[in-house]
């Protein structure tokens, strides 16, 4: 088999995943696209392992490690997404912009005020860590009390 087939397939799969990461808005869809990119890397590893006939089978061992790391990554990532969804009421990554540098403070506050409306109700039952974290943010706390 020509080596270009699996290599080109891996490249195209990686670029499809790249498009998904950049274009999707829901955080879980972004995680799916990340899985596609990891699979492209795995195809490359397996193809080069078969091509080089490595006696240590480094490609296949690394593929197994990548699969395990991807499983761990999807677990942690989904836990974070669920936590964000529980605290903010939304998992759209376009709307999670509390850390943004606001160039115009009035525009940023009017944009963020409606989003922060629903956070006080859910912020009361936060754990202590995220609560103290939100009190550190000065503008966010001011917005919430206003």
């Amino acid at each position, binding site marked *: 088999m020509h080596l270009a087939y699996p290599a080109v397939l891996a490249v195209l799969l990686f670029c499809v995943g790249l498009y998904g990461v950049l274009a999707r*808005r829901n955080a879980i869809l972004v995680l799916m*696209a990340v899985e596609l990119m990891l699979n492209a890397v795995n195809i490359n590893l397996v193809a080069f392992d078969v091509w080089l006939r490595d006696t240590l089978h480094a490609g296949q061992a690394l593929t197994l490690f990548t699969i395990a790391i991807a499983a761990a990554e999807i677990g942690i990532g989904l836990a974070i997404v669920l*936590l964000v969804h529980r605290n903010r009421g939304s998992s759209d990554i376009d709307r999670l912009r509390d850390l943004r540098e606001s160039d115009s403070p009035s525009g940023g506050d009017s944009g963020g005020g409606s989003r922060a409306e629903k956070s006080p109700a859910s912020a009361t039952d936060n754990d202590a860590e995220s609560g103290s974290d939100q009190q550190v943010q000065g503008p966010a706390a001011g917005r919430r009390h206003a």
Partner: protein
Amino acid sequence: MNALAHSAATHAAADHHGFLSPSGVEIVFVLVGLVTLGAALATVTTKQLVHAALWLVVALGGVAVEYLLLTAEFIAWVQVLIYVGSVVVLILFGLMLTRAPIGRSPDADSGNRWAALAVSVAAAATLVTVVVDAFRATWIDLADPAGPGSGSSEVTGTALFRHWVLPFEALSVLLLAALVGAIVLSRRDGDRDLPPARTRAGER
């Protein structure tokens, strides 16, 4: 006589190359690759979130078939078990728990999709050009002379537990850390009074 010799030659070729002839392997590889790419494109472009997860199943299953064609059998079954079995189920759990809409959600794509399309097409063009130019005259010899294939579970297990034991153990520690981290992230300190069925520690 001539036909007999011809059939014997093809039989020897089939013996040498296994189930499919080399060009047959290439054809099947390209076809499954097209299916995989189509499913991946549907995953990143569909408007329905649950359909995206189901197209992801097709894409990952296609990748598993590609592993089988590359004679990496153990990796293929691990791919089916881990990805199709657990990762997609986790993603479906995540979609349900974030109250994903069942029907079409028009805001699945953000506003910068054209920029994303331009970036990914440019990356694809560059990488395909480079890769095809680099591996123009490179061939994989999939036919194995004797013994188990290079990707059978015996060979993979020997390599994994003889040469890669230390990374393997480190990876088990990482999995444990991920497990503990997911539990810590998912539990809520505020509702200890709720019954345990309501807590979300079992999501992981």
